[in-house]
């Protein structure tokens, strides 16, 4: 594991508490180690409930952890005395359900954080926002509201919103899972382009073809633990462990 990683997780533990009656407490992350260096693309795979989404939410500081470290440039941002807002502003997350702000036009969705968090003026933010929308092929939808867009367009708008502030780390949480199959391609193409530009990414996905194409490292999660990790050709092509094989067989 490299020492100069942009993001390092060490022994991350997270338990969802039960309700004291029927729901038992559930260990979602059971001691996760992970390193992401700059320009690297790490792909998380595993069944539903294996902890992929929770792991991304932990990295983005949307969840508190029970134990372990989330090191961003060597600083443990899981410490409660660290400015979490500032740390979040350096990363961007794209969600499965897009989570665009429905009351704001596409352009305002994209420029909101630029103006409120990154202190850009209105004109500057609009220029940057339009340029980013141009890049994802949505410049003509800048004045539309999110509910006037197709699912694929909404997700591309959400990606534009995530990219416009120039984040050091892009977190993608099953961004194609809520899309109709024919719309998946337009989003994956965009992600491949971002990957080729050297965007640092952590991606949770069920698209194994995509994982094989873009990943520098594939991490197979099972029951909140890293069960197998390595180059995509190895983990996806020649898995060493039985659970990984079972998982890959079920996908076919």
């Amino acid at each position, binding site marked *: 594991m490299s020492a100069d990683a942009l993001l390092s997780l060490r022994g991350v533990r997270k338990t969802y508490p039960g309700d004291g009656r029927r729901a038992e407490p559930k260990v979602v992350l059971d001691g996760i180690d992970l390193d992401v260096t700059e320009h690297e693309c790490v792909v998380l795979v595993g069944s539903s409930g294996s902890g992929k989404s929770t792991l991304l939410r932990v990295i*983005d500081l949307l969840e508190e952890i029970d134990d372990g470290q989330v090191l961003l440039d060597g600083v443990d941002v899981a410490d409660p005395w660290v400015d979490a*807002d500032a740390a*979040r502003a350096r*990363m961007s*997350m794209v969600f499965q359900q897009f*989570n665009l702000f429905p009351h704001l036009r596409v352009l305002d969705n994209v420029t909101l954080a630029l103006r*409120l968090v990154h202190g850009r003026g209105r004109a500057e933010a609009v220029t940057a926002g339009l340029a980013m929308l141009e890049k994802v092929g949505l410049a003509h939808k800048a004045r539309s509201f999110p509910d006037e867009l197709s699912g694929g367009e909404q997700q591309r708008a959400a990606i534009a919103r995530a990219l416009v*502030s120039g984040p050091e780390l892009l977190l993608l949480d099953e961004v194609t899972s809520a899309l109709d199959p024919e719309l998946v391609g337009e989003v994956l193409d965009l992600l491949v382009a971002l990957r080729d530009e050297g965007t640092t990414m952590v991606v949770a996905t069920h698209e194994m073809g995509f994982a094989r194409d873009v990943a520098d490292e594939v991490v197979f999660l099972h029951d909140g633990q890293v069960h197998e990790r390595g180059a995509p050709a190895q983990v996806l092509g020649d898995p060493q462990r039985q659970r990984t094989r079972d998982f890959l067989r079920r996908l076919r």
Partner: protein
Amino acid sequence: MSGWQPSARARERDTFRRAQRRRALAVATVATVVVVAAVAYVVATAPGWERARTAFFSPERAVEVLPQVAQGLWLNVRVWLVASVVGLVVGLLLAVVRTSRLPALFPLRVLTVAYVDVFRGVPVLLVLLLAGFGLPALRLEWLPVSAAFLGGLAIVLTYTAYLAEIFRAGIESVHPSQVAAARSLGLSRGQTVRRVVLPQAVRNVTAPTASMLVSLQKDSGLISILGAVDAIRAAQIATTGDYNFTPYVVAGVLFLLLSIPLTRLVDAWSARQGWRGRLRGVSGGGVIR
């Protein structure tokens, strides 16, 4: 198009559906005529209908008292407007305080909960009497003692509590993923509330808020019990002495002339497509075909 001609089957279905519609129209017409005729017969043959007509629906008396009652109504309208603005602003603030998690706001939060519990649970009439007759008894120099002011105050106190609860429901109806998205972009808690949660919260509760304001408009008539000369009080004064209750009917009609268009306006407004970001219902949802 592609030169499509409806098939025999499609034409047959169409004919059947048209016949069904004609039949539905006929049934509705007959039913309406029967009911209206029955009501008219019952009313007109009821003993005392003549007396009722002169006592409640005398046109001459109506014309006579209209100016006084209308002048009184202007007071209702002013109380309503001021109470609406104050209630909306303070109600929204209270809802934000109540849903916030800032430690410094804890005492305010407790006060808000107590205030809402008390003023939602106590009859408006009691609040009116306490404010209208109780407050002047304190002889506070700075406190205006006009019945309209004190009555308006009592109504504001009550309605603000209701509006605060509506806005709280609105805030809680905004999906947590919206907050996650905003926080993920680096927005602070305050920015998230102001720019993401509140705009959606307010949109989600337009309909109940508006119906509360319509209800506030007619409850502005309650200030009459404190002696403020509003539409109801003006009507009451006009009825003293002659047992002709037409002025009350006039006041009622004037209230309706305000509240019915207001209700329709609000319906049209919240059905409008332009206001994005509220919870979407399917138009006509719940109607069984």
